[in-house]
């Protein structure tokens, strides 16, 4: 199979003006990927599928990745000339910069005809809120249909041109996107008494004490404070 650099160069030659960048993977797997600009993504995907050399006819895996907004502190060394005329001092300057958040969709492509792969392509949305759109690749590979619906459901990426973009795993009335890193589960998510504080504390905040007492009648014998149901609070005596 061609290397990713060759594929990138051919894509750039075929689609002048398109954005294609090579994303290197520092890990041991060394599965590098190509990040495609959204404007030409669908056309480039079609090219990757139909090109006689590559024939990437099989899209195995479609994944969403959430990259929330991140504060990056960069330290640069700046040499400050000494006003007294001595040697210049090197001072470390710290600059804060906010890396804008985005959602990313990763496609793992293989070729069943030529039995090679993977070629990994990534599409990045402009932001995580109002411009979380990428072009749908379902018209190119049918296997994206359910997987893109899943990415839409769990990450909130909107796929332009998807034939049937509905929630697939969560129910239709659900509003949030649970796989985002900043998702907070509702406090009535789980309230059965367990020996663990966090679940129980949440339940205590959500439910009136009487409901908890009804569910779990007695504290265990050794009576550790965080265990099982809390003792019903006595009403303040007048």
């Amino acid at each position, binding site marked *: 199979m061609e290397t990713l650099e060759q594929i990138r160069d051919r894509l750039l030659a075929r689609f002048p003006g398109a954005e294609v960048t090579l994303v290197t993977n520092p890990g041991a797997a060394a599965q590098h990927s190509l990040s495609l600009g959204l404007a030409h993504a669908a056309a480039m995907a079609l090219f990757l599928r139909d090109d006689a050399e590559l024939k990437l006819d099989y899209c195995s895996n479609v994944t969403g990745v959430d990259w929330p907004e991140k504060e990056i502190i960069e330290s640069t060394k700046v040499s400050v000339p000494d006003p007294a005329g001595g040697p210049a001092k090197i001072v470390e300057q710290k600059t804060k910069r906010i890396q804008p958040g985005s959602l990313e969709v990763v496609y793992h492509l293989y070729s069943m005809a030529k039995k090679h792969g993977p070629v990994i392509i990534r599409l990045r949305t402009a932001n995580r809120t109002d411009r979380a759109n990428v072009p749908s690749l379902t018209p190119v590979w049918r296997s994206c249909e359910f997987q893109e619906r899943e990415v839409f459901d769990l990450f909130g990426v909107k796929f332009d041109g998807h034939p049937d973009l509905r929630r697939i795993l969560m129910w239709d009335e659900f509003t949030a996107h649970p796989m985002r890193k900043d998702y907070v589960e509702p406090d009535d998510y789980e309230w*059965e*008494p*367990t*020996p*663990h504080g966090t679940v129980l504390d949440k339940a205590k905040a959500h439910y009136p004490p009487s409901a908890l007492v009804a*569910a*779990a*009648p*007695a504290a*265990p*014998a*050794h009576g*550790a404070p*965080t*265990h*099982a149901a809390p003792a019903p609070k006595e009403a303040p005596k007048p």
Partner: protein
Amino acid sequence: MLGSGLLQGLKVTAKNIAGSFHDPERLVTVEYPEQKTKLPENYRNFPFLVSENATDPMGTLRCVACQICEKECPPQCIYIEKSKDKKPDAAGKMQVYPAVFDIDTSVCMSCQICVEVCPFEAIKMDQVFEIATTDRFNALLLDRNQLAKPNSYYHQIHPTEAAEVDGRLLAERKAAEEKAKAAAAAAAAKAAAAAAAPKPVATPTATAGAPGAVAATVSVAKPATPPAAAPVSATPPAAAPAASPAQNAPASDGKAAP
């Protein structure tokens, strides 16, 4: 001929009906409550805590409340509180013990990860599976009194594994004792040498440069040294590098580091 496939199938069914009366390969079920199959040795159910002694299970728990299993447990069903005081363990060493050790078996998924991560061989998998209760909450929350079972019980349910574990523990204990003895002897020799010719060698750097494995065994060995030896060696850190025979090599790069 149409229907010959059906007849052939009926022949197979008849063979199976007849075979199920005499061929164990064709009848794999047993009448459960009356008849029971033998559990395989590796079978696992819920965890229990190993105690050294059956007569005093709370006093001889191997668990030192390090809380590694609590952290690693995938469904987070273990709850541990450390004790404030210390008690001597099987080797006579003072150790923290779990004041509270609970396992919520209604949450536990019997994955055995607590057993694998435990560095003290203190938690093992039980084989009791007839544990149905009528109370969904408290009866399934096992505390340390219910969890503690003696080592002899462990030998009974997992004989080969238990023998291996005991051998390993014994070897570790012996090694630690020998290390401690060697350390004490070397410390005494060093103290004598130091008294003869005092020269400030960079002993603390040697401890920093010593490989992790050596440092770990030394820290095990240290409390086990007879307390009488402590006042003899004037410099306590000297005992640590003396335990490692290869201390000279790391000492050289240890010097370069600061």
